[in-house]
């Protein structure tokens, strides 16, 4: 893989990030609705003061001037971005968007990375099994299960799991990342509490994405099993288990690895639904909150991180794909 190729791909990735950032910036500022007017109206009503006076007082509460031209806002935002500063929250002048990201990103990574890993291994295992034993009721049932789970939107699953495991059975906590009665830090009660609280969000992601992995693996495995080298391996008397794991699964995995980036970005993007349902303190929850308050600074910061994560994940997969499959020569 040449340096020129890597640089070119990196350039494209960075350009895509820049484009998505501009898009987010413009779209957010053109959203319908005005949080100031709404709150000013409430304040005017509560304090029996003229709307204009209430509006003035509400704008004071925010670190944002609604009359500032968009170009000036953009210059300030991108100037800060070049220095690694994602901006200051409109709602809270004491907190930068970097603070929010530093707080929320680890929690999101915890559930997304764990869910991605678990769903990947469970999915390919299941898919491999379904490909190998593709006739019979077990495989049929599994295919049906995978089709159903991968078709249902993640927020529906989140709610259903909440109803069943929390409301009905009471097995899991209904919200949060850990119990407030434990001391946060590297101690067993805290780790257990954090793990316990992460189970349902992770399980939700696993359930939704595992089926897709399995179906992909099944399709890919079946295709590989029809290849000549598999017949040759059988003819050479290589044991079934070896053919299954080293010949079929390894080759069937190649196209699936590329979709890891897509699944990862899907999980990050769906985080808003899952995290909001479980009141889990990740990026999606922060994004949903900021959206409700029209905190453009936080929204565009989180969106930038999410889009950058997605684009970079794709970039990394693209680079490593040629390593995984020597038949493919990048850039050629």
């Amino acid at each position, binding site marked *: 893989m040449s340096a020129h190729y890597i640089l070119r791909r990196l350039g494209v990735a960075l350009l895509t990030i820049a484009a998505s950032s501009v898009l987010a910036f413009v779209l957010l500022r053109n959203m319908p609705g005005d949080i100031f007017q709404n709150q000013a109206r409430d304040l005017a009503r509560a304090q029996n003061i003229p709307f204009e006076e209430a509006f003035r007082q509400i704008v004071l509460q925010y670190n944002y001037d609604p009359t500032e031209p968009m170009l000036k806002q953009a210059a300030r935002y991108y100037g800060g971005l070049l220095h690694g500063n994602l901006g200051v929250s409109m709602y809270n*002048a004491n907190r930068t968007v970097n603070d929010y990201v530093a707080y929320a990103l680890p929690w999101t990574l915890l559930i997304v990375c764990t869910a991605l890993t678990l769903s990947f291994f469970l999915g390919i295992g299941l898919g491999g099994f379904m490909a190998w034993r593709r006739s019979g009721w077990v495989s049929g049932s599994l295919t049906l299960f995978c089709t159903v789970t991968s078709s249902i939107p993640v927020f529906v699953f989140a709610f259903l799991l909440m109803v069943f495991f929390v409301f009905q059975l009471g097995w899991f906590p209904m919200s949060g990342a850990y119990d407030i009665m434990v001391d946060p830090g590297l101690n067993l009660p805290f780790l257990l509490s954090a793990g316990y609280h992460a189970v349902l969000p992770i399980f939700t992601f696993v359930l939704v994405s595992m089926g897709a992995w399995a179906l992909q693996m099944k399709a890919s495995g079946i295709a590989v099993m029809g290849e000549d080298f598999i017949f040759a391996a059988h003819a050479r008397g290589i044991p079934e288990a070896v053919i299954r794991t080293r010949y079929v699964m390894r080759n069937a995995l190649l196209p699936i690895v590329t979709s890891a980036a897509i699944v990862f970005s899907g999980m990050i993007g769906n985080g808003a639904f899952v995290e909001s349902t479980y009141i889990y303190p990740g990026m999606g929850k922060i994004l949903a909150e900021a959206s409700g308050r029209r905190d453009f600074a936080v929204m565009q910061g989180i969106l930038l991180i999410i889009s950058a994560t997605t684009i970079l994940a794709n970039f990394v997969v693209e680079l490593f794909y040629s390593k995984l499959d020597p038949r493919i020569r990048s850039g050629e």
Partner: protein
Amino acid sequence: MVDGRHILAPAASACGAVLQAAVRCRGTGSGSLPRTIRGRMQRARRRLGVGVGRCLCWVLALALPLGGSCQPASRAQGKEKVLILLGGGGVNPAQFTGNPWGGSGIGNMWNWSCEGLFQFCRMTDTISNRLALSIRHDGNRTLVTLREAVWSDGVPVTARDVWAFYQLHDAGVLTYLTAVNVLDEKTVEYVWREPAPYEEFRLCVIAPDKQLTLPYHIYGPWVDRAAEIRATAPPLTPEELAAGKKGPFSRSTSSTEYQKQWTDNWRDFKKAEPPNRMPVLTGPFLFYRLNENQMLLRKNPRYWAADRIRFDYLKLIAATPEQSIALLKNSGTAQVDGSLPLDIAQAVIRRNRDAVFFPMTDPACHGFYLNQQSKNAPLGRKEFRKALNVVLRKAPLREAGNYYGQEFDFATTAVAPGYVAKYVSPEVVARMERYPYNPARAEELLTSIGCRKVDGWWLDGAGLPIRLSLGVNGGWIPAGVVANVATLVADQLKAFGLQADVNVVDGSVFWDRVRAGQFDLIFDWVDVSWSFTYPYFPLRDYYTGSVWRDAMKVPEDPETGHPVWDVEDWDGKKLDPYKLLQEMPYMQDARERQYWIDRLIWIANENAFAINLYQNVTGEWYNRGMVKNLPLEDRIDEFHQMMPIPESGEVLQKTAELNIGFAGASVLFWLEPR
């Protein structure tokens, strides 16, 4: 604070070692494969396992300590009495500042940690002393003496702290004052602009504020700067005051220079944080720790009434409405705010014998304001508005919107109609028009203004079809309820022959559209008391607040910006409600106030400026298995856990105090752990 960087590396190493060991153990079970293949598989597995394990460990090691690093790390004791309430922190740890007025502030600890001089109770209008020991009126001065109390950092509370609040905060009471002075360490002097308001009114405008939220020893620089800036504002002239112009300490603060300085100082102040971000306050409970969905508050040992507080910790949990019900069913909380639909309430009671519902009258009603400048219907005509009031059958609307609510035959009364008998003279109540369901009368009224019915649909006097647009705020909580009510209203209007569409609009754009006049009927709280139920306050909001301009579209005087109400009393005498309500705080004679209150309420109902559908009945759920000393506690089983709506006396007061939104932390003075 936990620093994630210090524990990151050892955590990753330790976890990695554990997982490597696990992988090694797992690798020994490869059974009957040839040795070379088994060896390769074991190595591959080990590599894979170690790689994945390391990845997971780094993620875990990064996520857990860093995620928790925003919390103060100290241990809550296990045996203390913890009161679990819903409401959550209201702010996530990344936003918490410790300054009650800064940015996202301190979230829901406001109710439990912040105190004022007084605490008023919505619904009963009672005012209790908190940090005020006594109050005395002397001419145009009011003197408030503070009790002995200290801030949470041990510094004594003084009159300077109260003064500081009024320098930095644009409290509503300031428009009636010319100064707030510190007479001595414990005495604050309010100087009222002449003529001074009557004495009960003075207390009513002082009581709602939480004055002890700005400790001068913490925020002194910003307070002093605010006082300097305010001193530069010129006093309002008698002409300006007569024209209804208002300003803090009766000063004119509209100059650009003043606004800029004030804004700069305020924004600068909002960034100020107390040491270690620990809020410095005076309330019964203080900040202990916070996470995404919970806030833990610890009893303030220095609280002036610490001996009356029976709990050691307050745990506030964030929950969605569905989660709240589950928590209520499973005794996961001691309290849930609000009423529930009857079937859900019964399910809760069946499941949990400790869950008790305490309903209470809400001084607020669901209804529609009528846009008098509608282009789609003659809503500027009193007869048309009256007709709308008599074509609606309110019982099904009440059942859909608030099962426990109360229907009245009035159109709109400015005060909640449940209080009409209390605050309006009996002879005037007898004189007030009633609007029971009566489609025949509605037809008469419409015909009297030239409307006619063609092919089953009413046309206006000009022969144009009437098509009413019902605007509903989609952000209303609980979501969907009022949209259902509006749909039923539209159905009833259609059944009568009035075309009607329901428009549910996102909360962020709803009031923009209302102001733009896009709706003819606007769903909102009508006949509502946001603070005291004494009629001056709801009448003031009704006739002089923002709804006359935003929703009712009453004509406006282009010079003064005041509403021009074209109304008269039952004797045909023209009145100016705006002017009367500006003067009312200065009417010293209670009979004179009553005289005008009678007329203003009668006028609202007579002109049918709105449609009152039903008065809301809210309530509180408490878990008697977790707390005791609840109102009528010994009769809970007799009432099958659904208590009656209290009418008067101690039960009414205690029931109102169960509602934190109505009476703040008052409930803590008598609620006990079981």
